[in-house]
């Protein structure tokens, strides 16, 4: 009897906690999905709401927010802050928006934590490999060595007057490893401000999840790194950002060897040891940058970094296809087709 009473009490407490944690749903709540192309990828918004017109209007504002961020963070836009910083390398510091300062500071933080495996000053190296991918042949060793002289996050300075300075001429920053994560954070905040509590903002596979769906937590699929149309794992998620870096996203094969786009800033070559790394963190920008950093560090050192940081979980697929995941995913991740 005592046991039964305790069980009933525990069940009651659990149900009360569950009811308090889950936002209330009206019976008329619907799930709406919207897609647009931005930041060179597909942006997908999933919203739960009662009014389709309001959901649509909110989604348009979120898409606009992502496009605004793309505009000032893109190295391809003549007037963007990033273009100004890159053009002034070795000459002078450039006054930029507080948002750029915030992103650059986050990036520098991850660079230090990963001992330079994540580095936004990789612009010249990214350019070199982009050209290599176009001709389907890796660059020469000497060319890589020369380019590496221009890559070092310690040669990027931020001063108190919101100025960013690249110390060497020819240096350039590339925010590709963090911008999408930052954009999903801002779009997510915009939707929250508009009253949406239960939602997903997904920018080409980097996503941020808020609240729940009516049936319970959201279920997020992790793409299989070697079968482009399959899901490898499912993660039960609420109020978290999830980002995945994979060697399958952009690559070319030369003489039987795969050369992918995630570069190791310490040797100038595509990072080895992982097929895919998924990171969970409360913020998209951090999840995005950490996924790249852990991928470059490789399975052992990467997992060790993940374990050292508070509020970070990771799922790593190593080069043999073996899956390693942090204890925080125990019971929340399921595998198989």
């Amino acid at each position, binding site marked *: 009897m005592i046991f039964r009473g305790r069980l009933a009490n525990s069940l009651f407490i659990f149900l009360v906690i569950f009811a308090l944690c889950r936002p209330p749903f009206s019976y008329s709540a619907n799930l709406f*999905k919207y*897609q647009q192309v931005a930041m060179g*990828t*597909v942006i*997908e918004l*999933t919203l739960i709401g009662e009014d389709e017109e309001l959901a649509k209007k909110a989604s348009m504002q979120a898409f606009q927010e992502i496009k605004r961020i793309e505009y000032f963070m893109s190295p391809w836009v003549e007037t963007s802050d990033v273009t100004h910083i890159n053009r002034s390398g070795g000459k002078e510091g450039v006054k930029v928006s507080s948002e750029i300062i915030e992103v650059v500071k986050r990036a520098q933080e991850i660079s230090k934590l990963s001992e330079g495996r994540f580095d936004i000053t990789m612009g010249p190296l990214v350019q070199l490999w982009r050209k290599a991918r176009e001709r389907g042949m890796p660059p020469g060793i000497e060319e890589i060595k020369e380019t590496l002289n221009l890559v070092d996050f310690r040669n990027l300075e931020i001063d108190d007057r919101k100025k960013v300075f690249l110390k060497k001429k020819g240096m350039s920053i590339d925010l590709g490893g963090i911008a999408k994560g930052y954009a999903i954070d801002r779009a997510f905040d915009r939707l929250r401000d508009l009253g949406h509590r239960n939602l*997903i903002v*997904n920018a*080409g*596979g*980097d*996503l941020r*999840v808020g609240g729940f*769906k009516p049936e319970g937590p*959201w*279920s*997020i*699929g*992790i*793409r299989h*790194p070697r079968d*482009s*149309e399959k*899901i490898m794992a*499912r*993660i039960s998620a609420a109020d978290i950002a*999830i*980002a*995945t870096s*994979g060697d*399958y*996203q*952009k*690559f*070319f094969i030369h003489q039987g060897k795969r050369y992918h786009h995630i570069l190791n800033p310490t040797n100038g070559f595509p990072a080895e040891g992982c097929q*895919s790394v*998924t990171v969970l963190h409360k913020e998209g920008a951090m999840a995005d940058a950490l996924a790249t950093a852990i991928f470059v560090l490789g399975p052992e050192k990467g997992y060790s970094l993940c374990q050292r940081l508070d509020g970070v979980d990771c799922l790593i697929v190593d080069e043999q296809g073996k899956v390693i995941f942090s204890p925080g995913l125990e019971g929340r991740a399921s595998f198989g087709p």
Partner: protein
Amino acid sequence: MIDIVPIQLTKIDNLNWTEEDIKKLKSRTLGKSILKPFSFDPDVDSVSGATITAALVFDSLDKAKVIFETLKKEGYIQ
């Protein structure tokens, strides 16, 4: 759904879909009613990792019901 004809479908790194890929997509879509929900993976609400083309195709098919209902409402379909 009586047929699905890919005009241009690419996968990761802009590789074209193979005959096998198209066959798989057809096996999951043909013969189904557009009035019922289409889902790439009913157990998943969103995907982390590069965008899966098939998931986008399924999302688009899922919008066919709304288009059908709009056309019906406006008298284009009896």
